[in-house]
């Protein structure tokens, strides 16, 4: 049976000699459902137009119809490679809005899971980046390491990817001795494993040829493009939210922010590798300095919902949907707006809340790093070759769940 194929790329006037190619949404190298429309001249990209939105699930709208506690599960599905970091980011923002105090132990626990999530995410990034460039064995080695972390997650909160570990005012569950033992074992063995990947990749001439001087972006340009995270630090800009707006227990941690110089794909790759080592050292500090105490604060909002003294349930039926709004009588629960950013593996993840005193956010805006990174692709890919585009997408470390929300 013959079937019709069409490419949906109409030829416009003046474009007849351009070779138009549509990469994605189903393409092995677009990390999910990114679509990139390319104008090629031979193999050189003349124009690159990324299209996103193929995973737009309406997070921000959905959040307006749910309570602050209910919204926590949504954040897992943002950057599903590092769900823990998103949980922490969300909780930090809501706690600032509701002025909830977090006990010291749970701050340390949050730092710990954040860094574990960073390692898991960076390992996955290294795996897919290497696979995109063609080194398929690194892909599987990285997954081996990542699996250890995921199993620790599973033991900690019962889930591998979508953890929902944090709670407003603390975390859900304390660590057990066996988790700490496993983590310690991981922390001890990780640097030598990382070295193994580096020997596979970093000493490889082909890898260096494929990454050095590819997708170069200068410091000022990177700031203008609103790049954050390792993609920005690869260009030598010292901006890390863990240092600039310390949250959780990063105040008490001793770590460095690795910076690149050249701003090319290789510099970003080096930055992330160094970051993994720093994360490892933060994890070690967490294990050593973990303070005793409660894991959830006294003034944390209670999860047992209706009919508790001091709470009232208000049924509000707007025009087209019926939704029970749980209104909490908290003094600290005011009208206002707040923006809190955290450093997730991809970059700066910020939550902007507008509250009008209800139990649900009036407006929740998620500032996702991947969204801005993809928009930077347009500038970065121009003039490079088709194979470089793959390397650039890989090095920007985008995840479409976070980008499209």
């Amino acid at each position, binding site marked *: 049976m013959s079937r019709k194929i069409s490419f949906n790329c109409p030829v416009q006037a003046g474009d007849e000699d351009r070779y138009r190619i549509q990469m994605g949404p189903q393409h092995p190298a677009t990390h999910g459902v990114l679509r990139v429309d390319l104008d090629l001249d031979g193999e050189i990209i003349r124009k690159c137009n990324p299209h996103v939105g193929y995973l737009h699930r309406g997070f921000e709208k959905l959040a307006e119809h749910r309570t602050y506690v209910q919204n926590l599960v949504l954040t897992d599905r943002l950057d599903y490679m590092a769900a823990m970091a998103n949980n922490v980011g969300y909780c930090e923002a809501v706690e600032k809005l509701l002025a909830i105090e977090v006990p010291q132990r749970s701050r340390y626990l949050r730092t710990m899971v954040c860094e574990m999530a960073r390692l898991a995410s960076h390992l996955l990034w290294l795996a897919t980046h290497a696979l995109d460039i*063609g080194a398929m064995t690194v892909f599987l080695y990285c997954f081996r390491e990542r699996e250890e972390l995921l199993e620790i997650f599973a033991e900690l909160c019962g889930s591998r990817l979508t953890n929902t570990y944090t709670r407003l005012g603390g975390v859900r569950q304390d660590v057990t001795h066996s988790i700490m033992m496993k983590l310690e074992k991981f922390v001890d063995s990780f640097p030598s494993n990382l070295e193994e990947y580096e020997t596979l990749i970093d000493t490889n001439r082909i890898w260096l040829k494929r990454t050095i001087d590819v997708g170069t972006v200068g410091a000022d340009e990177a700031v203008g493009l609103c790049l954050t995270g390792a993609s920005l630090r690869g260009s030598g800009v010292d901006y890390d939210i863990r240092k600039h707006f310390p949250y959780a227990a990063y105040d008490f941690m001793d770590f460095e922010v690795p910076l690149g110089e050249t701003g090319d794909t290789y510099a970003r790759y080096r930055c992330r590798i160094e970051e993994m080592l720093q994360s490892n050292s933060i994890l070690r500090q967490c294990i050593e300095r973990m303070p005793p105490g409660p894991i959830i604060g006294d003034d944390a909002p209670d999860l047992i919902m209706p009919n508790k003294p001091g709470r009232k349930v208000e049924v509000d039926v707007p025009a087209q949907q019926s939704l029970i709004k749980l209104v909490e009588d908290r003094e600290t629960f005011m009208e206002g707006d707040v923006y809190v950013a955290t450093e997730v593996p991809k970059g700066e993840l910020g939550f902007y809340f507008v509250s009008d005193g209800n139990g649900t956010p009036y407006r929740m805006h998620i500032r996702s790093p991947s969204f801005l990174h993809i928009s930077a692709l347009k500038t970065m890919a121009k003039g490079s070759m088709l194979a470089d585009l*793959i390397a650039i997408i890989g090095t920007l470390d985008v995840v479409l769940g976070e980008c499209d929300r």
Partner: protein
Amino acid sequence: MQILILLIQIAILVAVVLLHVAYATYFERKIIGHMQVRMGPMLVGWHGLLQPIADGIKSFFKEDIIPDQADKSLFLAAPIICLAAMMVSLSVLPFAKGWALADINVGLLFIFAMSSLASYGIILAGWASNSKYTLLGGIRSMAQVISYEIAIGLSLVGVMMLSGTLNLSQIVEAQGNSFFGMFIISQPVAFFVFFIAMLAETNRVPFDLPEAETELVSGYITEYSGMRYAMFFMAEYIGMFVMASIGVVCFLGGWYGPFAVPLFPPIWFILKVYFIMFLFIWIRATLPRYRYDQLMAIGWKLLIPLSLGNIFITGLAMTLAQ
């Protein structure tokens, strides 16, 4: 009668080579699996031994899609050209003394001709599919084959000079007679050039640009399904086999080994071929992929000057030796 025997010989050769192709994929998956700390096929047959047969059966009974906008006749012809060209080049390979279907005097040239013809199949496939990815894959393949055919040819000139013939059996005999036993010892540079160009010629990692999965989906075979895809697959593996065989014949002493094997003389030949195949797979598991312009740069700026220099030095040495 002679024709009948020849036909039987051809049938046996084709059957053996097809079986080899099937199991080469199995070995590749197994070896790469073990290099990547996993097992490879395990559950279809004992240790996955029936895996290639299951793949074959499945492919044979898949639907055969021909895109609407494709050039139908060329689309159908491309895999056949590819496979036929590769299969024909098998006929001149000497597996052991006297074990060649056609012991012709221009065997080496014949193989070059046929492997270039196979790349026609690839280009036609890329063009006839009328899809952008396949066209890019076809163009890449064309450029790659043209540049590396030169390097591979020049690298073998040294061998031709030393053996004084283009007949593959006689090249092996020349190595058997020579002092060092194998041309790899007297022609190491040529072997180096040949090996790299061989990887490029068979579209293997790190030169698998025509079918770079993360760039061009599947390159020139993106639009092929079912049996036609399997034919390209077979052609690729036969191509690997042929190239490895040339390497063995020209550099590694062909069927000669440390001692003669009485009942089944090609054993050394096959072992050597499989050693080169193992190198192919090892490289695939280790190296990333080159970029298109870098590939061209290696071909023109490194391999061709090297092999020209090699010819010069070989000629000089031969003149001095006389």
